[in-house]
């Protein structure tokens, strides 16, 4: 509506203005007013408008629009085709990728399992070896302790007989008493016990 108003105002102004212009500039010019308003030119314009627009319409509707329409249609279907193909390829790529990832995952799991087994086996081996070594050690230590105990018992018994002999000799020399082996043994044992008590306290 705004454009219409503007156009109407423009027209009114122009009709008035060009009238004034005509009056001012075209003194002696036979044509007054707008040439558009000369009714005698109208039949010719209407006739040629009808002929030219009519022929033009036939040409546009038979030749031009179908031609452009087909080209656009072909392009569209070709694009759709290409798009469909691209979509297919993309789906295929996605499947391949998924497969690859699955196999990778499987391999990874296998490797992990393998590593776990290997480490368990190694651990078991190590434990077994340690146990064997400990056992061997224990036997060795036991033997050594037995030997030690034997040696000690022998030394102790030797010590006791040496001590009773020494006691017999000491009693004969100091008191002139002839002590029997049994008496000497008893005295040695008693004094050893007294010594042990003394040391303990």
């Amino acid at each position, binding site marked *: 509506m705004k454009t219409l108003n503007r156009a109407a105002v423009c027209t009114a102004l122009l009709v008035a203005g060009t009238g004034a212009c005509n009056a001012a500039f075209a003194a002696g010019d036979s*044509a007054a007013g707008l040439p*558009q308003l000369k009714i*005698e*030119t109208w039949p*010719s314009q209407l006739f040629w*408008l009808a002929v*030219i*627009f009519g022929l*033009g319409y036939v040409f546009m509707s038979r*030749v031009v629009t179908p031609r452009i329409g087909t080209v656009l249609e072909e392009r569209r279907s070709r694009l759709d085709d290409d798009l469909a193909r691209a979509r297919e390829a993309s789906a295929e790529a996605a499947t391949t990728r998924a497969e690859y990832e699955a196999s990778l995952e499987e391999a990874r799991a296998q490797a992990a399992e393998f590593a776990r087994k290997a480490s368990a086996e190694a651990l078991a081996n190590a434990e077994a070896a340690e146990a064997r070594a400990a056992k061997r050690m224990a036997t060795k230590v036991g033997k050594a302790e037995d030997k030690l105990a034997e040696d000690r018992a022998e030394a102790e018994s030797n010590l006791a007989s040496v001590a009773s002999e020494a006691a017999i000799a000491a009693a004969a020399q100091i008191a002139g008493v002839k002590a029997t082996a049994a008496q000497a043994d008893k005295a040695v044992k008693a004094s050893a016990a007294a010594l042990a008590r003394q040391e303990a306290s």
Partner: protein
Amino acid sequence: MASEGMHSPVEQFEIKRFIEFSAGGYDISFTNSSLFMLLAMVVGGTFLTVAMSKREMVPGRLQGAAEMMYEFVADMVRSNVGNDGRAYFPFVFTLFVFLLFGNMLGLIPYSYTFTSQIIVTFAMAAFVFVGVTIVGLVKHGLHFFSFFVPQGAPKVLIPFLIVIEVISYFVRPVSLSVRLFANMLAGHTMLKVFAGLAVMISGAGGIAMTGSLLPLAALIGLTGLEVLVAALQAYVFTILTCMYLNDALHLH
């Protein structure tokens, strides 16, 4: 000098007969107006045909321009009329090409602008108006007249509103034709006035001639504006045709 000094700015709209014909007592001579109608159609049609001659899948510049024109009008019809507007697309397209090339060719110096003739624009607007009314009547029968009854209006107002609607309906061909005619008339008159002014000042000679640079600069600016107006008015005429068609097909 004084006798040739300045032509009337509306002299450019004068009809000149090139080949004289008459039929049934009417003068139907081939005139400058007819020549440029023919040129608009021939140049437009040739452009569209030559541009599309290669039918390339990847369009070049020329083909791109032709396709752009087609798509432009096709989108206009699609968005304003909808799918049942397809049948009218060739007409709307012809109308747009005719007006666009007519307006553009008219801007070339010494050419003629047939869209500045009220009888031409009115004939086209009247054709659209009558055609659209017939389309509406054929499609909807008497129900078509419900178009003039605004929906949801208070009952008391309805008689007044019907009068207003009927008037606004019958004003359509007038507004449609006057809009194009007046824009072309005003634009071309203005161009001529400034051009005449530049010529007149330069006729003064000497240093005063430099004063003609001002209207010349204005003329350059106005020419750019007129190119815009030429395209815009072709578009406006076409889109309003689409809207009227939509009203007739869908009754709002």
